[in-house]
């Protein structure tokens, strides 16, 4: 049954290859952003009461810089996702019909494409970028001792949580994409989704910096699993039990949101009014 999604997996990977120059430009911009963030955090720590060696919300400046660098690399490799835009285009141009007349699930098509894209991004950019980041941060003494076998278990869990994060991101993008059936416009929905995810996933700021009430609420939401948790797993800030719990929570959210997406789609599909005739 899954074999029929193979062409979409391949297409996702091939598209990523095709846009590798775009992605390179994007990489340069991202490096500049990281540099800014690093200097920003250095300034924050220097001017704090405890000075450069202060521990703010459980983070030393070394950990904070590692966190910023790694979340940026993570976001760059993991969230290469066109699902929302592609659904929006399918609805606007009526090309959704081309998929509805085929014996495949519309959701499955996007999941396969995103997975293909994730695999290609990880091979092309993920492996070299993570290796470089870990080597540099490690040699500067910014990371705890990255020795085997303890780190190995964390690395494995990190890869698993990265896969979960990518799937979850695709599920959320798909849900917002399906909402385009109702709004007929993806622009606002995309901004809403991007903002929500960037803020609540801890990409901008670790969730430890949030006020207590909000932090509690966000910790049971799916978003932390999309950025903060995988990175804290990799940095070994979470022990193995915490790591497993975090991955399990994300997996549970994927199941729940997929079910919701299925219901939403079967309602939205009644709204389809393919233009012409």
């Amino acid at each position, binding site marked *: 049954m899954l*074999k*029929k999604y*193979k*062409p979409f997996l391949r297409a996702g990977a091939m598209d990523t290859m095709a846009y590798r120059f775009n992605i390179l430009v994007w990489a340069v911009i991202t490096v500049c952003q990281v540099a800014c963030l690093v200097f920003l955090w250095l300034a924050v720590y220097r001017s704090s009461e405890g000075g450069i060696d202060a521990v703010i919300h459980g983070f030393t400046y070394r950990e904070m810089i590692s966190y910023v660098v790694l979340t940026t690399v993570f976001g760059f490799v993991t969230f290469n996702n066109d699902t929302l835009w592609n659904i929006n285009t399918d609805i606007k141009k*009526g*090309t*959704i*019909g*081309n998929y*509805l*007349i*085929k*014996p*495949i*699930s519309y959701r499955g098509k996007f999941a396969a494409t995103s997975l293909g894209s994730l695999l290609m991004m990880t091979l092309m950019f993920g492996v070299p970028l993570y290796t470089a980041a870990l080597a540099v941060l490690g040699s500067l003494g910014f990371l705890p001792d990255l020795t085997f076998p303890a780190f190995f278990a964390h690395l494995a869990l990190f890869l698993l949580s990265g896969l979960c994060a990518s799937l979850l991101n695709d599920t959320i993008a798909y849900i917002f994409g399906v909402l385009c059936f109702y709004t007929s416009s993806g622009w606002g929905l995309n901004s809403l989704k991007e903002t929500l995810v960037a803020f609540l996933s801890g990409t901008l700021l670790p969730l430890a910096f949030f006020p207590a009430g909000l932090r509690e609420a966000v910790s049971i939401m799916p978003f932390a699993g999309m950025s903060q948790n995988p990175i804290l797993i990799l940095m070994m800030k979470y022990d193995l039990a915490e790591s497993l719990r975090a991955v399990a929570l994300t997996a549970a959210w994927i199941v729940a949101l997929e079910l919701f997406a299925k219901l939403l789609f079967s309602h939205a*599909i*009644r709204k*389809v*009014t*393919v233009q*012409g*005739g």
Partner: protein
Amino acid sequence: MIEVKDLTKVFRKPIRGSGLSGMVKTLFSRKYEEVRAVDGISFTVPDGEIVGYIGPNGAGKSTTIKMMCGILTPTSGSILIDGTEPCRKRQQVAQHIGVVFGQKTQLWWDIPLIESFKVLKEIYQIPDADYRERMAFLGEVLDITRFLSQPVRTLSLGERMRADLAASMIHNPRILFLDEPTIGMDVLVKEKIRLAIHALNRTYGTTVVLTTHDMTDIEDLCSRIILLEKGKIIYDGPLTDLKKRFGNIKTLTLTVPAEVHAGTAPVLSPEVAVSEEDGRLVLRFDADRIPLEQVVQYAFRDLRAMDMKIAEISIGDVVKTILEQQEAEHAEKV
């Protein structure tokens, strides 16, 4: 087999005011207008039949097709494709039907045509042997082998349409829905497409539902037509019966000497309508009421015809007449 029962599709369209003030108003109060695109139609298509689904623009043809292949959900009524409801079990139905929308391509635009077929092979899980056999068959009847390695965007409209047809048939569907497959094609391509549909129907017993505005398509292909107007079926039956409804109408076009005119010519019978077109006389009559032989004699003897052409009423004329009658009835009611 296709079974359609009391099928209705109502679209809700927001009524928008005109101009800027109208647009602002619709932001706050939205009124909807209901459009009954398809209005309680029922029909059955047995296996192996080629049905022409015809009617003017906006009659609801495409809407019906989209409901039959599971893209649109009916407002009420039911559709069964080989016993399965397409809007409930879309994927299951999709495995056994093929669809072509003449206005849109379903091929992947930037990749060579052959790659599109390979993708379809995987999506439909077509076994290798079947795939090779179908490609050989389609390559021959649709003549697509020559441009298989070209990206779809470089194909001419005629080539693209043949490719689209081949793509819709690659998985050996039991039922084929063709929504205006000959639109914008030249005569030769149209001919090829018709031959391919015939070959497919004969070789594999594929059921075909076809919408078109080209009456030659209908006369060449369809044993049965369903005529749709404003969402309702106004005729469903064999092509020959539709013509008979208007009697055995024939027209004789005569080349006559310059001094013979419609108004002054001797009259044979009130059954024969005489008119003048481009300096020729045109006689229209029902051959069941007045023998053709008698009219021909009259034409040569009384009208001194030098040449003549005998034609049956075309299906185009029939459809036009029915639609005009419908319009007139509507006008009377209003």
